[in-house]
């Protein structure tokens, strides 16, 4: 009897002790916005159950700037509270010092090239692409068909089509506008303006060789075109719009065209949406002329491993699982998150769940990265100054060439030796 008791005690002790040695709790900081939180939890729990570990989710603020400020403070303090973190495409340069190089540990075969380049800072792969995003042109299919216009191929055609439809549509209580986009002086305007520049073949903020490259005569012409939209095809209020304000105008039926991210598709076609079933989607227009090309700025989120965590090997394994093809496929079908494996856009089940994804491979091929890696920790300041200069032009406070000259002088002051 005593022996049996002893055996039971021993067994119980072993049961209690064995997992305590191997079981590790990892902290994963991912976004809780909309369906993101639930999908992140499911993915993490699958990994945890497989390896016998635990994952604690750390919720992040919803607004990007606040999320960045919090992560920056946690990482700068060397906090062990976060092992794996979700970061925006443009934070890689700012946070790189605190993130592990994943290149020696993870297989990047089949991942989107532009996303990998974006996440490589000084030769180190500091984050693994998790899902992507790129600017799209949404249009009112019913209005274009009624007035006999094809979806515009160039920005100049978009301008003409918008004007024509605006004039031809009968008067209504709320004015119909031609084009809405993100024109508030913030990161979104940087994205929109970089798309206008790149689609006309003009250099972005930083040239290939690291020089400050904004004072390009082509850039001034492009900004003059954008300036001509304000008050004619775009409401003056577009200067205060972010993504959701633009969607509000378009979704209530008061605009012909809208530039937005892929997330808008599902909302525009929701049963209670006034424009459901009447919206088309296309690549963003290119500029006129031989240098014109279709260009969309890449967004998306990445997963990174903190240098200060206690279990780097396990944290890397969690990233491997969450960014795997199978997990990205699941997230694409259930949550409409565009995968970073281009071959998944040919997957029948993914396409059936998200018809808009059919456009994405071509859009991603023309993807433009923001200069996050090049400008490093100065990115947010560089981007803000760029957005303010463009905003000045759009609001009519400055002529395009003068605004760009001032911006170049300012950026050269920020860049060591005038180049990055």
């Amino acid at each position, binding site marked *: 009897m005593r022996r049996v008791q002893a055996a039971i005690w021993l067994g119980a002790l072993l049961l209690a002790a064995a997992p305590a040695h191997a079981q590790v709790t990892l902290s994963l900081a991912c976004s809780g916005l909309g369906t993101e939180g639930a999908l992140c939890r499911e993915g993490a729990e699958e990994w945890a159950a497989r390896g016998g570990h635990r994952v604690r989710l750390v919720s992040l603020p919803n607004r990007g*700037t606040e999320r960045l*400020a919090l992560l*920056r*403070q946690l990482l*700068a*303090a060397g906090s062990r509270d976060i092992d794996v973190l979700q970061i925006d495409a443009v934070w890689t340069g*700012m946070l790189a*010092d605190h993130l592990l190089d994943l290149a020696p540990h993870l297989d990047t075969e089949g991942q989107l090239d532009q996303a990998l380049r974006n996440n490589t800072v000084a030769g180190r792969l500091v984050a693994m692409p998790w899902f992507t995003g790129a600017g799209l042109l949404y249009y009112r299919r019913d209005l274009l068909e009624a007035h006999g216009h094809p979806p515009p191929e160039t920005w100049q055609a978009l301008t003409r089509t918008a004007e024509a439809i605006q004039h031809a549509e009968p008067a209504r209580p*709320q*004015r119909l506008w031609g084009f809405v986009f993100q024109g*508030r*002086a*913030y990161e979104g305007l940087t994205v929109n303006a970089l798309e206008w520049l790149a689609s006309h073949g003009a250099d972005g903020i930083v040239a290939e060789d690291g020089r400050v490259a904004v004072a390009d005569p082509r850039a001034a012409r492009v900004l003059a075109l954008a300036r001509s939209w304000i008050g004619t095809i775009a*409401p*003056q*209020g*577009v*200067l*205060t719009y972010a993504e959701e304000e633009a969607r*509000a*105008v378009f979704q209530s039926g*008061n605009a012909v065209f809208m530039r937005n991210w892929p997330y808008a598709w599902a909302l525009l076609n929701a049963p209670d949406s006034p424009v459901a079933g009447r919206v088309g989607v296309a690549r963003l227009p290119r500029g006129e002329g031989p240098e014109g090309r279709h260009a969309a700025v890449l967004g998306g989120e990445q997963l990174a491993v903190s240098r200060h965590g206690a279990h780097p090997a396990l944290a890397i394994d969690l990233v491997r699982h969450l960014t795997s093809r199978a997990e990205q496929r699941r997230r694409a079908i259930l949550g409409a998150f565009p995968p970073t494996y281009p071959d998944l856009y040919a997957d029948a089940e993914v396409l059936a769940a998200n018809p808009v994804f059919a456009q994405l491979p071509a859009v991603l091929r023309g993807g433009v990265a923001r200069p996050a890696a090049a400008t490093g*920790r*100065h990115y*947010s*300041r560089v981007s*803000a100054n760029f957005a*303010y200069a463009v*905003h*000045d032009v759009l*609001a009519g*406070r400055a002529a395009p060439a003068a605004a760009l000259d001032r911006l170049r002088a300012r950026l050269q002051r920020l860049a060591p030796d005038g180049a990055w």
Partner: protein
Amino acid sequence: MSAAAERRRARTAWLFLAPMLLALALVAAWPLARTTWLGFTDATLFAPGAQRFVGLANYRLLFADPDWWRAVANTLVFATVSVALETVLGLLVALLLDAKLRGRGVLRAAMLVPWAIPTVVSAQLWAWMLHDQHGVVNAMLVALGVIAEPRAWLAEPWAAMAWIVAVDVWKSTPFMALLSLAALQLVPRAVMEAARIDGLGPVGIFFRITLPLIRPALLVAILFRLLDALRVFDLMYVLAGSGPATASMSVHARQLLVDFGEVGEGSAAATALVLVVVACATLVAWLGRLRLGGAGR
């Protein structure tokens, strides 16, 4: 009283003051000193603790930055215009409430409503009312025929600044009115009676009797409002974001510190803000020859 007793009294006084001085040192002097020190270093949010002393480099950057000068100008314009309007309107409201009106108590309470709402909330409230597509302000102005079609008030820098001032006047006039009213009620009625009997009209009474008598109290109220207005942050941030067209000095400093992670340069901007506030307060106190030590009349 003997010298020894005097000394003992002084010691007791310091003893009683000690907790307050300690608290002030912890919550005011220490952060201020640290911010001032960080303003002379190259500290960033990317590598805290690794700062080096860089002398006046941050101040040179700041003074060479047209955005900072823009922020100084925005702040001064905002503070001057809004405090001037609030003082005049507040005094008018106070004179009205000082008269023996029926329902004066209710009026006084109702007047306080804008002041009681937190600034962030009232700023957001006005942001919706000023919305270019769905805002009630546009709907009213169009219905009245003042403007032909809705305008994006917050997209035009001058209109945006005018609205920021207007919202502040809407919010802070009650504060000035209340302080003016308190001062008005201390003016001895007998003096006014005497002036009236001597044949001075109501306008004369206001400028020769009332205004000189309430001036010290009014100046204190103006000083308070001015200090508040020079530090303005939430109105600009909520109504117009961090853009340089409307940014105040506080908005500019926060952007450097938090958004850009430039702790050194941002601390220099914050210290410069404190210096500007001190300079303005000194100027106003000197202009009003205000003796804060007491015995004002």
